[in-house]
């Protein structure tokens, strides 16, 4: 099970644009447009590195989840890794 990590929230500036969130990543100077659940996943990593199951548990504490697969969380995390917003711990 891959464990994911991300920079602390202070490394990002996020602006909610209706359904999307624009995220400016200070370390890279790159801006990303994220759709749910990616911004929530990044925020959930603020507590520390986590695998998909742990991320799901953290999100479930805050939201009512629609969809159950940790495979979806892994897929979203892979995108965040490609974008440079997260990495495998």
């Amino acid at each position, binding site marked *: 099970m891959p464990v994911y990590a991300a920079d602390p929230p202070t490394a990002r500036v996020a602006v*909610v644009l209706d*359904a999307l969130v624009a995220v400016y990543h200070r*370390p*890279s*100077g*790159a*801006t*990303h*447009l*994220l*759709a*749910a*659940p*990616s911004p*929530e996943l990044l925020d959930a990593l603020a507590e520390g590195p986590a695998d998909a199951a742990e991320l799901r548990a953290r*999100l479930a504490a*805050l*939201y*009512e*989840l*629609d*969809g*159950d*697969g940790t*495979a*979806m*969380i892994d*897929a*979203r995390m892979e*995108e*965040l890794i*490609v*974008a*440079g*917003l997260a990495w495998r711990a």
Partner: protein
Amino acid sequence: MAQDYDKPENNAGESAANPLGVAGRRGVLMLGAVAATSVVTIRPALASTAASVLNCKIPIPDPSHTGQYITQDGKLVPANTKGAVAPPPRPITGEEAKKMIGGQSPAGFDPSAREAYVNYIRRLQHGTSGFTCYASLQAPRP
């Protein structure tokens, strides 16, 4: 719809009355389909071409500290400080910096100074000469 933007207080009131909210950010979170893409990266113009990035230069140290030595952990110290390394003979290009960060030692640089140089580059802050070059190296590639 424009009226929504004119009345943020009302929206806040609705959210308070309904903890699950109406905007979707606090209520139901759609995990989506495995194949759905949820990340789009806007590439800054400075990183738009690999060539411009790899040809940018990082002076070590920055011009206002010319001549200073670099400690192994990347801090600037007076010249000839024991344990610190001399600055490189010329600015490091983006391509060379990338190699150094990756553990290689490009031609023309003292291999034993590689770690000090890499740590210096990692410590670069906004406003320091070479920061934009380093930042663009970290940006995702097409």
